[in-house]
Protein backbone atom coordinates (compact mmCIF):
# COMPACT_ATOMS: atom_id res chain seq x y z
CA UNK A 1 0.00 0.00 0.00
CA UNK A 2 1.70 3.19 -1.13
CA UNK A 3 1.10 6.51 0.58
CA UNK A 4 0.39 8.30 -2.67
CA UNK A 5 -2.31 10.76 -1.68
CA UNK A 6 -4.29 9.40 -4.62
CA UNK A 7 -7.36 7.26 -5.01
CA UNK A 8 -5.60 4.20 -6.34
CA UNK A 9 -7.33 1.58 -8.48
CA UNK A 10 -7.03 -0.78 -5.52
CA UNK A 11 -8.98 1.61 -3.29
CA UNK A 12 -11.51 2.41 -6.00
CA UNK A 13 -12.21 -1.29 -6.44
CA UNK A 14 -13.26 -1.62 -2.78
CA UNK A 15 -16.82 -0.78 -1.85
CA UNK A 16 -16.13 -0.01 1.79
CA UNK A 17 -13.41 2.38 2.96
CA UNK A 18 -12.08 3.04 6.42
CA UNK A 19 -10.49 5.95 8.24
CA UNK A 20 -7.27 3.89 8.25
CA UNK A 21 -7.37 3.76 4.44
CA UNK A 22 -7.58 7.51 4.31
CA UNK A 23 -4.62 7.79 6.67
CA UNK A 24 -2.59 5.20 4.81
CA UNK A 25 -3.20 6.86 1.45
CA UNK A 26 -2.71 10.31 3.02
CA UNK A 27 -6.05 11.49 1.76
CA UNK A 28 -7.26 14.53 3.68
CA UNK A 29 -10.98 14.81 4.35
CA UNK A 30 -13.44 17.12 6.02
CA UNK A 31 -16.21 16.17 8.42
CA UNK A 32 -19.69 17.40 7.60
CA UNK A 33 -22.66 15.47 9.01
CA UNK A 34 -25.08 16.11 6.14
CA UNK A 35 -24.16 16.31 2.48
CA UNK A 36 -26.47 16.86 -0.42
CA UNK A 37 -25.23 16.13 -3.93
CA UNK A 38 -26.62 17.97 -6.93
CA UNK A 39 -27.39 21.47 -5.79
CA UNK A 40 -30.53 21.87 -7.91
CA UNK A 41 -34.10 22.37 -6.73
CA UNK A 42 -34.12 18.99 -4.96
CA UNK A 43 -31.07 19.77 -2.87
CA UNK A 44 -32.34 23.26 -2.21
CA UNK A 45 -35.73 22.29 -0.79
CA UNK A 46 -34.14 19.60 1.36
CA UNK A 47 -31.60 22.01 2.80
CA UNK A 48 -34.37 24.58 3.29
CA UNK A 49 -36.33 22.07 5.38
CA UNK A 50 -33.33 21.16 7.50
CA UNK A 51 -32.36 24.76 8.10
CA UNK A 52 -35.92 25.53 9.18
CA UNK A 53 -35.80 22.47 11.43
CA UNK A 54 -32.82 24.09 13.14
CA UNK A 55 -29.78 22.43 11.54
CA UNK A 56 -26.90 24.96 11.43
CA UNK A 57 -25.41 25.81 8.03
CA UNK A 58 -22.04 24.49 9.23
CA UNK A 59 -23.51 20.97 9.49
CA UNK A 60 -24.52 20.93 5.83
CA UNK A 61 -22.54 20.92 2.59
CA UNK A 62 -24.09 21.18 -0.86
CA UNK A 63 -21.80 19.61 -3.46
CA UNK A 64 -22.79 20.86 -6.86
CA UNK A 65 -21.54 21.80 -10.28
CA UNK A 66 -23.88 24.79 -10.50
CA UNK A 67 -23.67 28.16 -8.76
CA UNK A 68 -27.32 28.64 -7.80
CA UNK A 69 -30.09 26.08 -7.32
CA UNK A 70 -32.34 27.15 -10.18
CA UNK A 71 -29.55 27.29 -12.77
CA UNK A 72 -30.23 23.96 -14.47
CA UNK A 73 -33.97 24.42 -14.21
CA UNK A 74 -33.77 27.89 -15.71
CA UNK A 75 -31.56 26.62 -18.52
CA UNK A 76 -33.91 23.74 -19.38
CA UNK A 77 -37.04 25.86 -19.20
CA UNK A 78 -35.48 28.62 -21.30
CA UNK A 79 -34.35 26.38 -24.15
CA UNK A 80 -37.65 24.51 -24.08
CA UNK A 81 -39.45 27.84 -24.58
CA UNK A 82 -40.35 29.02 -21.08
CA UNK A 83 -38.45 32.28 -20.66
CA UNK A 84 -38.80 34.18 -17.35
CA UNK A 85 -41.99 35.95 -18.35
CA UNK A 86 -43.82 32.75 -19.36
CA UNK A 87 -45.80 30.60 -16.98
CA UNK A 88 -44.52 27.21 -15.85
CA UNK A 89 -46.58 24.06 -15.43
CA UNK A 90 -47.01 23.57 -11.71
CA UNK A 91 -49.63 25.25 -9.61
CA UNK A 92 -49.90 28.17 -7.27
CA UNK A 93 -49.00 26.39 -4.04
CA UNK A 94 -46.02 24.43 -5.41
CA UNK A 95 -43.45 26.81 -4.00
CA UNK A 96 -39.91 25.52 -3.67
CA UNK A 97 -38.97 28.68 -1.77
CA UNK A 98 -41.60 28.16 0.92
CA UNK A 99 -42.11 24.82 2.66
CA UNK A 100 -45.68 25.73 3.66
CA UNK A 101 -46.89 26.67 0.19
CA UNK A 102 -48.60 29.66 1.81
CA UNK A 103 -48.91 32.42 0.75
CA UNK A 104 -49.27 30.83 -2.66
CA UNK A 105 -47.69 32.30 -5.76
CA UNK A 106 -51.09 33.60 -6.84
CA UNK A 107 -51.38 35.56 -3.59
CA UNK A 108 -47.86 36.88 -4.03
CA UNK A 109 -48.46 37.96 -7.63
CA UNK A 110 -51.83 39.44 -6.66
CA UNK A 111 -50.20 41.47 -3.90
CA UNK A 112 -47.38 42.62 -6.17
CA UNK A 113 -49.59 43.50 -9.14
CA UNK A 114 -52.33 44.88 -6.85
CA UNK A 115 -54.83 42.80 -8.79
CA UNK A 116 -57.37 40.17 -7.80
CA UNK A 117 -57.24 38.65 -11.28
CA UNK A 118 -54.83 35.93 -10.19
CA UNK A 119 -56.99 35.02 -7.19
CA UNK A 120 -60.15 34.83 -9.25
CA UNK A 121 -58.33 32.44 -11.56
CA UNK A 122 -57.37 30.17 -8.67
CA UNK A 123 -60.93 30.36 -7.36
CA UNK A 124 -62.50 29.21 -10.61
CA UNK A 125 -59.87 26.73 -11.87
CA UNK A 126 -59.91 24.21 -13.40
CA UNK A 127 -63.61 24.33 -14.23
CA UNK A 128 -64.01 27.86 -15.58
CA UNK A 129 -60.37 28.76 -16.16
CA UNK A 130 -57.07 27.06 -16.97
CA UNK A 131 -54.99 26.14 -13.94
CA UNK A 132 -53.23 29.26 -12.73
CA UNK A 133 -49.47 28.79 -12.77
CA UNK A 134 -46.70 31.22 -11.77
CA UNK A 135 -44.30 32.97 -14.10
CA UNK A 136 -40.87 31.35 -14.23
CA UNK A 137 -39.41 34.69 -13.13
CA UNK A 138 -41.55 34.72 -9.96
CA UNK A 139 -40.18 31.31 -9.05
CA UNK A 140 -36.56 32.35 -9.54
CA UNK A 141 -36.93 35.57 -7.56
CA UNK A 142 -38.47 33.66 -4.66
CA UNK A 143 -35.67 31.09 -4.72
CA UNK A 144 -33.08 33.83 -4.70
CA UNK A 145 -34.62 35.42 -1.63
CA UNK A 146 -34.90 32.15 0.26
CA UNK A 147 -31.36 31.08 -0.70
CA UNK A 148 -30.02 34.30 0.82
CA UNK A 149 -32.19 33.85 3.92
CA UNK A 150 -30.89 30.36 4.74
CA UNK A 151 -27.27 31.14 3.88
CA UNK A 152 -27.20 28.79 0.92
CA UNK A 153 -23.97 30.12 -0.58
CA UNK A 154 -22.07 29.32 2.63
CA UNK A 155 -23.02 25.67 2.31
CA UNK A 156 -22.22 25.39 -1.39
CA UNK A 157 -19.03 23.69 -2.58
CA UNK A 158 -18.57 23.79 -6.34
CA UNK A 159 -17.43 20.38 -7.53
CA UNK A 160 -18.40 17.40 -9.63
CA UNK A 161 -19.14 14.50 -7.32
CA UNK A 162 -17.62 11.22 -8.34
CA UNK A 163 -18.77 8.75 -5.74
CA UNK A 164 -20.23 7.93 -2.36
CA UNK A 165 -18.57 5.02 -0.59
CA UNK A 166 -19.58 3.38 2.65
CA UNK A 167 -17.33 3.88 5.64
CA UNK A 168 -16.42 0.83 7.68
CA UNK A 169 -17.34 2.43 10.99
CA UNK A 170 -20.60 3.84 9.67
CA UNK A 171 -21.50 6.77 7.45
CA UNK A 172 -19.89 7.56 4.12
CA UNK A 173 -17.03 9.13 2.24
CA UNK A 174 -18.01 11.44 -0.59
CA UNK A 175 -15.47 12.26 -3.28
CA UNK A 176 -15.71 15.26 -5.57
CA UNK A 177 -13.51 17.06 -8.09
CA UNK A 178 -13.56 20.82 -7.55
CA UNK A 179 -13.52 23.17 -10.51
CA UNK A 180 -10.01 24.48 -11.04
CA UNK A 181 -9.07 23.83 -7.41
CA UNK A 182 -7.24 20.90 -5.85
CA UNK A 183 -7.57 17.55 -7.54
CA UNK A 184 -10.29 16.40 -5.22
CA UNK A 185 -12.20 16.98 -2.03
CA UNK A 186 -13.24 14.19 0.28
CA UNK A 187 -15.94 14.48 2.92
CA UNK A 188 -16.79 12.17 5.75
CA UNK A 189 -20.53 12.35 6.36
CA UNK A 190 -23.14 10.52 8.29
CA UNK A 191 -26.01 11.33 5.96
CA UNK A 192 -25.90 11.80 2.21
CA UNK A 193 -28.71 13.06 0.02
CA UNK A 194 -28.56 12.65 -3.76
CA UNK A 195 -30.61 14.87 -6.08
CA UNK A 196 -28.73 14.91 -9.36
CA UNK A 197 -31.68 15.63 -11.63
CA UNK A 198 -31.75 14.31 -15.18
CA UNK A 199 -28.90 11.94 -16.01
CA UNK A 200 -28.97 13.14 -19.61
CA UNK A 201 -30.88 13.86 -22.78
CA UNK A 202 -32.51 10.98 -24.55
CA UNK A 203 -33.04 11.14 -28.30
CA UNK A 204 -35.49 9.08 -30.27
CA UNK A 205 -33.42 6.20 -31.69
CA UNK A 206 -34.01 7.07 -35.36
CA UNK A 207 -33.01 10.70 -34.73
CA UNK A 208 -29.93 9.66 -32.78
CA UNK A 209 -29.02 7.39 -35.66
CA UNK A 210 -29.47 10.24 -38.16
CA UNK A 211 -27.30 12.60 -36.16
CA UNK A 212 -24.51 10.10 -35.82
CA UNK A 213 -24.65 8.76 -39.36
CA UNK A 214 -24.76 12.12 -41.15
CA UNK A 215 -23.00 14.23 -38.53
CA UNK A 216 -25.88 16.70 -38.76
CA UNK A 217 -26.61 18.29 -35.39
CA UNK A 218 -28.22 21.36 -36.86
CA UNK A 219 -31.39 20.16 -38.51
CA UNK A 220 -32.40 17.51 -36.02
CA UNK A 221 -32.56 19.06 -32.57
CA UNK A 222 -33.79 18.15 -29.14
CA UNK A 223 -36.11 20.66 -27.54
CA UNK A 224 -33.90 20.58 -24.44
CA UNK A 225 -30.84 21.82 -26.29
CA UNK A 226 -30.43 25.36 -27.58
CA UNK A 227 -32.22 25.57 -30.92
CA UNK A 228 -32.94 29.25 -31.52
CA UNK A 229 -31.43 28.87 -34.99
CA UNK A 230 -34.55 26.97 -36.03
CA UNK A 231 -36.82 29.91 -35.19
CA UNK A 232 -34.34 32.37 -36.73
CA UNK A 233 -34.23 30.40 -39.98
CA UNK A 234 -38.02 30.40 -40.19
CA UNK A 235 -38.02 34.19 -39.94
CA UNK A 236 -35.91 34.39 -43.10
CA UNK A 237 -38.03 32.12 -45.29
CA UNK A 238 -41.02 29.81 -45.08
CA UNK A 239 -40.15 26.32 -43.98
CA UNK A 240 -41.57 23.10 -42.63
CA UNK A 241 -40.88 21.80 -39.16
CA UNK A 242 -41.65 18.33 -37.90
CA UNK A 243 -42.49 18.21 -34.22
CA UNK A 244 -42.29 14.85 -32.47
CA UNK A 245 -43.70 14.19 -29.04
CA UNK A 246 -46.95 14.99 -27.27
CA UNK A 247 -46.01 16.36 -23.89
CA UNK A 248 -45.90 19.88 -22.54
CA UNK A 249 -42.64 20.60 -24.31
CA UNK A 250 -44.26 19.85 -27.67
CA UNK A 251 -47.01 22.30 -26.69
CA UNK A 252 -44.44 24.94 -25.85
CA UNK A 253 -42.50 24.49 -29.07
CA UNK A 254 -45.72 24.65 -31.08
CA UNK A 255 -46.69 27.81 -29.24
CA UNK A 256 -43.34 29.40 -30.08
CA UNK A 257 -43.61 28.43 -33.76
CA UNK A 258 -47.15 29.77 -33.97
CA UNK A 259 -46.45 32.92 -31.91
CA UNK A 260 -43.64 33.73 -34.36
CA UNK A 261 -45.90 32.92 -37.26
CA UNK A 262 -48.54 35.32 -35.93
CA UNK A 263 -46.12 38.06 -34.89
CA UNK A 264 -44.04 38.15 -38.07
CA UNK A 265 -46.56 36.89 -40.61
CA UNK A 266 -44.46 33.80 -41.39
CA UNK A 267 -45.36 30.90 -43.65
CA UNK A 268 -44.20 28.15 -41.31
CA UNK A 269 -45.80 24.75 -41.88
CA UNK A 270 -45.89 22.25 -39.05
CA UNK A 271 -46.25 18.50 -39.25
CA UNK A 272 -46.78 16.96 -35.86
CA UNK A 273 -46.12 13.26 -35.49
CA UNK A 274 -47.83 11.39 -32.65
CA UNK A 275 -46.60 7.95 -31.78
CA UNK A 276 -49.73 7.40 -29.71
CA UNK A 277 -52.64 9.38 -31.06
CA UNK A 278 -55.41 10.09 -28.56
CA UNK A 279 -58.63 11.02 -30.28
CA UNK A 280 -60.93 11.63 -27.36
CA UNK A 281 -61.56 11.11 -23.66
CA UNK A 282 -60.23 7.74 -22.61
CA UNK A 283 -60.24 5.33 -19.70
CA UNK A 284 -62.95 3.76 -17.53
CA UNK A 285 -65.49 5.94 -15.76
CA UNK A 286 -63.51 6.35 -12.52
CA UNK A 287 -60.21 6.88 -14.36
CA UNK A 288 -61.31 8.93 -17.32
CA UNK A 289 -58.98 11.49 -18.81
CA UNK A 290 -59.64 14.20 -21.37
CA UNK A 291 -58.06 13.92 -24.77
CA UNK A 292 -58.39 14.85 -28.42
CA UNK A 293 -56.58 15.76 -31.64
CA UNK A 294 -53.75 13.43 -30.65
CA UNK A 295 -53.18 14.74 -27.13
CA UNK A 296 -53.91 13.37 -23.68
CA UNK A 297 -54.83 16.30 -21.44
CA UNK A 298 -54.20 16.82 -17.77
CA UNK A 299 -53.14 19.81 -15.74
CA UNK A 300 -50.01 18.35 -14.23
CA UNK A 301 -47.82 15.42 -15.10
CA UNK A 302 -49.93 13.20 -12.87
CA UNK A 303 -53.47 13.45 -11.56
CA UNK A 304 -53.37 16.09 -8.87
CA UNK A 305 -54.14 13.80 -5.94
CA UNK A 306 -50.80 12.09 -6.42
CA UNK A 307 -49.34 14.94 -4.34
CA UNK A 308 -51.47 14.56 -1.30
CA UNK A 309 -54.79 12.80 -1.76
CA UNK A 310 -56.19 9.51 -2.74
CA UNK A 311 -53.64 8.40 -5.31
CA UNK A 312 -50.77 9.27 -3.00
CA UNK A 313 -52.27 7.15 -0.24
CA UNK A 314 -53.04 4.31 -2.63
CA UNK A 315 -49.59 4.15 -4.23
CA UNK A 316 -47.89 4.19 -0.86
CA UNK A 317 -49.37 0.77 -0.12
CA UNK A 318 -48.43 -0.97 -3.37
CA UNK A 319 -45.41 -3.11 -4.19
CA UNK A 320 -43.74 -4.43 -7.32
CA UNK A 321 -45.89 -5.27 -10.31
CA UNK A 322 -49.04 -3.80 -8.74
CA UNK A 323 -47.29 -0.49 -8.31
CA UNK A 324 -45.95 -0.54 -11.85
CA UNK A 325 -49.50 -1.24 -13.07
CA UNK A 326 -50.96 1.77 -11.27
CA UNK A 327 -48.19 3.96 -12.67
CA UNK A 328 -49.20 2.80 -16.10
CA UNK A 329 -52.86 3.44 -15.44
CA UNK A 330 -52.19 7.01 -14.39
CA UNK A 331 -50.44 7.57 -17.66
CA UNK A 332 -47.13 8.12 -16.00
CA UNK A 333 -45.28 6.62 -18.92
CA UNK A 334 -47.28 8.30 -21.69
CA UNK A 335 -46.94 11.97 -22.48
CA UNK A 336 -49.64 14.49 -21.61
CA UNK A 337 -50.11 18.22 -21.65
CA UNK A 338 -52.43 20.74 -20.03
CA UNK A 339 -55.54 21.84 -21.88
CA UNK A 340 -54.92 25.54 -22.26
CA UNK A 341 -57.20 27.93 -24.08
CA UNK A 342 -54.42 29.64 -25.98
CA UNK A 343 -52.98 26.39 -27.28
CA UNK A 344 -56.41 25.13 -28.30
CA UNK A 345 -57.04 28.30 -30.24
CA UNK A 346 -53.66 28.29 -31.98
CA UNK A 347 -53.87 24.67 -33.10
CA UNK A 348 -57.47 25.06 -34.24
CA UNK A 349 -56.36 28.01 -36.39
CA UNK A 350 -53.54 25.89 -37.79
CA UNK A 351 -55.83 23.02 -38.66
CA UNK A 352 -58.30 25.38 -40.31
CA UNK A 353 -55.54 27.15 -42.24
CA UNK A 354 -53.97 23.87 -43.32
CA UNK A 355 -50.54 24.78 -41.95
CA UNK A 356 -50.70 22.48 -38.93
CA UNK A 357 -51.13 18.81 -39.73
CA UNK A 358 -50.86 15.69 -37.61
CA UNK A 359 -49.77 12.16 -38.44
CA UNK A 360 -50.09 9.09 -36.31
CA UNK A 361 -47.52 6.36 -36.30
CA UNK A 362 -43.87 5.69 -35.86
CA UNK A 363 -41.13 7.08 -38.03
CA UNK A 364 -39.38 4.36 -40.04
CA UNK A 365 -36.45 6.42 -41.20
CA UNK A 366 -35.00 9.91 -41.47
CA UNK A 367 -32.55 10.62 -44.33
CA UNK A 368 -31.16 13.77 -45.95
CA UNK A 369 -33.12 14.96 -49.00
CA UNK A 370 -32.57 17.54 -51.71
CA UNK A 371 -31.84 21.23 -50.87
CA UNK A 372 -30.70 20.46 -47.35
CA UNK A 373 -34.11 19.08 -46.44
CA UNK A 374 -34.87 16.03 -44.33
CA UNK A 375 -37.07 13.18 -45.44
CA UNK A 376 -38.97 11.29 -42.76
CA UNK A 377 -40.89 8.16 -43.67
CA UNK A 378 -44.04 7.51 -41.63
CA UNK A 379 -46.11 4.49 -42.58
CA UNK A 380 -45.00 4.64 -46.24
CA UNK A 381 -45.53 8.39 -46.56
CA UNK A 382 -42.50 10.63 -47.13
CA UNK A 383 -42.59 13.94 -45.30
CA UNK A 384 -40.08 16.66 -46.20
CA UNK A 385 -39.03 19.24 -43.66
CA UNK A 386 -36.31 21.75 -42.95
CA UNK A 387 -36.05 20.83 -39.30
CA UNK A 388 -37.12 18.16 -36.85
CA UNK A 389 -37.62 19.09 -33.22
CA UNK A 390 -37.58 16.11 -30.89
CA UNK A 391 -39.75 16.93 -27.90
CA UNK A 392 -39.80 13.47 -26.41
CA UNK A 393 -37.32 13.03 -23.71
CA UNK A 394 -35.06 14.01 -20.97
CA UNK A 395 -35.11 10.61 -19.40
CA UNK A 396 -31.88 8.72 -19.79
CA UNK A 397 -31.02 5.63 -17.72
CA UNK A 398 -30.01 6.43 -14.13
CA UNK A 399 -26.67 4.66 -14.66
CA UNK A 400 -25.65 7.52 -16.97
CA UNK A 401 -25.09 9.54 -13.82
CA UNK A 402 -21.68 8.59 -12.47
CA UNK A 403 -22.69 8.97 -8.82
CA UNK A 404 -25.74 6.78 -9.28
CA UNK A 405 -23.82 4.22 -11.34
CA UNK A 406 -21.26 3.98 -8.55
CA UNK A 407 -24.00 3.66 -5.95
CA UNK A 408 -25.53 0.78 -7.90
CA UNK A 409 -22.17 -0.91 -8.28
CA UNK A 410 -20.60 -0.32 -4.88
CA UNK A 411 -23.19 1.21 -2.57
CA UNK A 412 -25.74 -1.60 -2.39
CA UNK A 413 -28.46 0.37 -4.20
CA UNK A 414 -30.94 -1.41 -6.47
CA UNK A 415 -33.63 -0.64 -9.00
CA UNK A 416 -37.40 -0.30 -8.52
CA UNK A 417 -40.17 -1.77 -10.73
CA UNK A 418 -39.64 1.04 -13.26
CA UNK A 419 -35.88 0.52 -13.37
CA UNK A 420 -34.98 3.62 -11.37
CA UNK A 421 -33.39 3.94 -7.95
CA UNK A 422 -35.24 1.93 -5.29
CA UNK A 423 -36.15 4.11 -2.33
CA UNK A 424 -38.17 3.55 0.85
CA UNK A 425 -41.29 5.54 1.70
CA UNK A 426 -39.03 7.99 3.48
CA UNK A 427 -36.69 8.24 0.47
CA UNK A 428 -33.80 6.32 1.95
CA UNK A 429 -32.06 4.40 -0.82
CA UNK A 430 -32.73 0.77 -0.05
CA UNK A 431 -29.65 -1.34 0.66
CA UNK A 432 -27.26 1.54 1.25
CA UNK A 433 -27.38 1.87 5.03
CA UNK A 434 -23.99 2.08 6.68
CA UNK A 435 -23.91 1.86 10.46
CA UNK A 436 -26.02 4.75 11.70
CA UNK A 437 -25.70 6.53 8.38
CA UNK A 438 -28.20 6.71 5.56
CA UNK A 439 -28.31 7.71 1.91
CA UNK A 440 -31.45 9.46 0.63
CA UNK A 441 -32.41 10.34 -2.90
CA UNK A 442 -35.08 12.49 -4.48
CA UNK A 443 -36.11 13.65 -7.91
CA UNK A 444 -36.54 11.90 -11.22
CA UNK A 445 -34.02 9.16 -10.37
CA UNK A 446 -36.55 7.76 -7.88
CA UNK A 447 -39.59 7.56 -10.15
CA UNK A 448 -41.34 4.24 -9.69
CA UNK A 449 -41.32 4.33 -5.91
CA UNK A 450 -44.13 4.62 -3.36
CA UNK A 451 -44.66 8.22 -4.36
CA UNK A 452 -45.01 9.03 -8.06
CA UNK A 453 -44.83 12.83 -8.18
CA UNK A 454 -41.11 12.90 -7.43
CA UNK A 455 -39.92 15.06 -10.30
CA UNK A 456 -41.79 18.22 -9.38
CA UNK A 457 -41.27 21.05 -6.93
CA UNK A 458 -43.98 19.76 -4.67
CA UNK A 459 -42.71 16.19 -4.95
CA UNK A 460 -39.22 17.31 -4.03
CA UNK A 461 -40.67 19.08 -1.00
CA UNK A 462 -42.67 16.02 -0.01
CA UNK A 463 -39.44 14.01 -0.20
CA UNK A 464 -37.66 16.69 1.82
CA UNK A 465 -40.31 16.47 4.52
CA UNK A 466 -40.04 12.69 4.70
CA UNK A 467 -36.26 12.95 4.86
CA UNK A 468 -36.30 15.67 7.52
CA UNK A 469 -38.76 13.64 9.60
CA UNK A 470 -36.58 10.55 9.26
CA UNK A 471 -33.53 12.54 10.30
CA UNK A 472 -35.48 13.79 13.29
CA UNK A 473 -36.27 10.19 14.26
CA UNK A 474 -32.54 9.51 14.09
CA UNK A 475 -31.86 12.49 16.32
CA UNK A 476 -30.09 14.64 13.74
CA UNK A 477 -32.58 17.49 13.92
CA UNK A 478 -35.82 18.47 15.57
CA UNK A 479 -39.14 17.41 14.13
CA UNK A 480 -40.96 20.58 13.08
CA UNK A 481 -44.16 20.73 15.15
CA UNK A 482 -47.01 23.27 14.96
CA UNK A 483 -45.32 25.86 17.18
CA UNK A 484 -41.96 25.83 15.44
CA UNK A 485 -43.67 25.68 12.08
CA UNK A 486 -45.70 28.80 12.82
CA UNK A 487 -42.78 30.71 14.32
CA UNK A 488 -40.59 29.85 11.35
CA UNK A 489 -43.32 30.84 8.93
CA UNK A 490 -43.45 34.28 10.50
CA UNK A 491 -39.70 34.56 10.06
CA UNK A 492 -40.11 33.56 6.42
CA UNK A 493 -42.76 36.21 5.93
CA UNK A 494 -40.56 38.89 7.45
CA UNK A 495 -37.56 37.60 5.51
CA UNK A 496 -35.55 37.14 8.72
CA UNK A 497 -32.40 35.09 8.14
CA UNK A 498 -31.89 31.77 9.88
Amino acid at each position, binding site marked *: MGATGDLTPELLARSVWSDEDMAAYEIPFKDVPFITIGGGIGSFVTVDYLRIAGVPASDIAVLSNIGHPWQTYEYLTRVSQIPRAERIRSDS*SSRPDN*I*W*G*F*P*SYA*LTEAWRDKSVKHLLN*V*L*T*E*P*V*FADFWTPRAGTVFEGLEREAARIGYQDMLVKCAVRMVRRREAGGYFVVGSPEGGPKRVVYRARYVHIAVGYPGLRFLPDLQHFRERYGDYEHVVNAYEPHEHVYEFLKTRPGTVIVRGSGIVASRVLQRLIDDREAHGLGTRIVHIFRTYVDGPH*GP*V*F*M*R*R*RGGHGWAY*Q*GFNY*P*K*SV*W*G*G*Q*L*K*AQMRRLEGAERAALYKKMGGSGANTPWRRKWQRQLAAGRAGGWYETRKGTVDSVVPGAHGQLVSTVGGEEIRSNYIIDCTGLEADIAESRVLADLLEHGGAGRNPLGRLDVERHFEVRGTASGKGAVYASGTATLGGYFPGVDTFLGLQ*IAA*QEIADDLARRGFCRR*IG*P*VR*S*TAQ*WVRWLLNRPI
Partner: protein
Amino acid sequence: MLPLLSGRIQTRLFLLALAGSLVTLLLAPLLPGPVKDHFLVLGAVALFGVGWELVYHLLMQFRWEKDWPTLFGLVTAVPEGLVVWLALRPEPLAFCLHFGAVWLAVWLLANGPMRVPFLRWRFRGGRLL
Protein backbone atom coordinates in the same frame (compact mmCIF):
# COMPACT_ATOMS: atom_id res chain seq x y z
CA MET B 1 -55.19 20.18 -0.17
CA LEU B 2 -56.24 17.05 -2.04
CA PRO B 3 -58.64 15.33 0.33
CA LEU B 4 -58.98 11.77 1.53
CA LEU B 5 -62.37 10.90 3.01
CA SER B 6 -60.95 10.73 6.52
CA GLY B 7 -59.07 13.96 5.90
CA ARG B 8 -62.22 15.74 4.77
CA ILE B 9 -64.07 14.77 7.92
CA GLN B 10 -61.22 15.57 10.29
CA THR B 11 -60.54 18.93 8.70
CA ARG B 12 -64.21 19.87 8.75
CA LEU B 13 -64.68 18.95 12.40
CA PHE B 14 -61.46 20.63 13.45
CA LEU B 15 -62.13 23.88 11.64
CA LEU B 16 -65.76 24.06 12.69
CA ALA B 17 -64.79 23.47 16.31
CA LEU B 18 -62.08 26.09 16.19
CA ALA B 19 -62.99 28.79 13.67
CA GLY B 20 -66.71 28.00 13.72
CA SER B 21 -66.95 28.42 17.47
CA LEU B 22 -64.91 31.60 17.42
CA VAL B 23 -67.04 33.18 14.69
CA THR B 24 -70.22 32.10 16.51
CA LEU B 25 -69.06 33.66 19.77
CA LEU B 26 -68.08 36.87 18.01
CA LEU B 27 -71.37 37.13 16.16
CA ALA B 28 -73.62 36.00 19.02
CA PRO B 29 -74.27 39.54 20.36
CA LEU B 30 -75.56 40.56 16.91
CA LEU B 31 -77.81 37.56 16.45
CA PRO B 32 -81.30 37.13 17.91
CA GLY B 33 -81.97 34.28 20.34
CA PRO B 34 -79.77 32.51 22.87
CA VAL B 35 -76.15 31.57 22.10
CA LYS B 36 -76.97 27.91 22.51
CA ASP B 37 -79.24 28.05 19.43
CA HIS B 38 -76.38 29.26 17.32
CA PHE B 39 -74.15 26.50 18.55
CA LEU B 40 -76.94 24.12 17.64
CA VAL B 41 -76.64 25.38 14.06
CA LEU B 42 -72.90 24.84 14.21
CA GLY B 43 -73.42 21.33 15.52
CA ALA B 44 -75.83 20.57 12.69
CA VAL B 45 -73.31 21.79 10.09
CA ALA B 46 -70.77 19.43 11.60
CA LEU B 47 -73.13 16.49 11.94
CA PHE B 48 -74.77 16.69 8.51
CA GLY B 49 -71.36 17.55 7.14
CA VAL B 50 -70.06 14.07 7.78
CA GLY B 51 -72.82 12.81 5.49
CA TRP B 52 -72.09 15.47 2.91
CA GLU B 53 -68.43 14.55 2.86
CA LEU B 54 -69.41 11.02 1.88
CA VAL B 55 -71.35 12.44 -1.06
CA TYR B 56 -68.49 14.73 -2.10
CA HIS B 57 -66.05 11.87 -1.85
CA LEU B 58 -68.23 9.83 -4.16
CA LEU B 59 -68.58 12.68 -6.65
CA MET B 60 -64.84 13.23 -6.59
CA GLN B 61 -64.34 9.71 -7.90
CA PHE B 62 -65.63 10.88 -11.27
CA ARG B 63 -62.80 13.38 -11.52
CA TRP B 64 -59.58 12.22 -13.17
CA GLU B 65 -57.48 14.35 -10.85
CA LYS B 66 -59.28 13.11 -7.70
CA ASP B 67 -59.21 16.70 -6.54
CA TRP B 68 -61.79 19.04 -5.11
CA PRO B 69 -61.48 22.49 -6.72
CA THR B 70 -61.46 25.56 -4.51
CA LEU B 71 -64.75 26.75 -5.94
CA PHE B 72 -66.56 23.52 -5.00
CA GLY B 73 -65.58 24.14 -1.41
CA LEU B 74 -67.38 27.47 -1.60
CA VAL B 75 -70.56 26.66 -3.55
CA THR B 76 -71.38 23.58 -1.52
CA ALA B 77 -72.42 26.12 1.11
CA VAL B 78 -75.73 26.48 -0.74
CA PRO B 79 -77.11 22.93 -0.46
CA GLU B 80 -75.60 22.44 2.97
CA GLY B 81 -77.03 25.69 4.28
CA LEU B 82 -80.42 24.86 2.88
CA VAL B 83 -80.55 21.47 4.58
CA VAL B 84 -79.50 22.89 7.96
CA TRP B 85 -82.08 25.64 7.65
CA LEU B 86 -84.84 23.19 6.73
CA ALA B 87 -83.93 21.01 9.69
CA LEU B 88 -83.77 23.76 12.32
CA ARG B 89 -85.83 26.62 10.80
CA PRO B 90 -83.88 29.43 12.47
CA GLU B 91 -84.55 33.11 11.71
CA PRO B 92 -83.52 33.33 7.98
CA LEU B 93 -81.53 36.56 7.92
CA ALA B 94 -79.56 35.85 11.07
CA PHE B 95 -78.95 32.31 9.86
CA CYS B 96 -77.58 33.51 6.54
CA LEU B 97 -75.22 35.88 8.30
CA HIS B 98 -74.04 33.33 10.83
CA PHE B 99 -73.81 30.37 8.48
CA GLY B 100 -72.17 32.46 5.75
CA ALA B 101 -69.54 33.85 8.10
CA VAL B 102 -68.71 30.42 9.50
CA TRP B 103 -68.50 28.90 6.06
CA LEU B 104 -66.26 31.65 4.73
CA ALA B 105 -63.92 31.46 7.70
CA VAL B 106 -63.57 27.68 7.41
CA TRP B 107 -63.08 27.87 3.65
CA LEU B 108 -60.45 30.59 3.87
CA LEU B 109 -58.50 28.77 6.57
CA ALA B 110 -58.62 25.49 4.69
CA ASN B 111 -57.24 27.15 1.58
CA GLY B 112 -53.97 28.29 3.01
CA PRO B 113 -53.42 29.24 6.64
CA MET B 114 -54.02 25.64 7.82
CA ARG B 115 -50.70 24.74 6.25
CA VAL B 116 -48.77 27.07 8.50
CA PRO B 117 -49.05 25.19 11.80
CA PHE B 118 -49.79 21.84 10.16
CA LEU B 119 -46.91 21.29 7.79
CA ARG B 120 -47.86 17.73 6.87
CA TRP B 121 -51.60 18.21 6.58
CA ARG B 122 -51.74 18.93 2.84
CA PHE B 123 -49.64 15.90 1.96
CA ARG B 124 -51.78 13.62 4.14
CA GLY B 125 -55.09 14.24 2.44
CA GLY B 126 -56.25 16.65 5.11
CA ARG B 127 -55.76 14.25 8.01
CA LEU B 128 -54.68 15.77 11.28
CA LEU B 129 -54.44 12.53 13.24
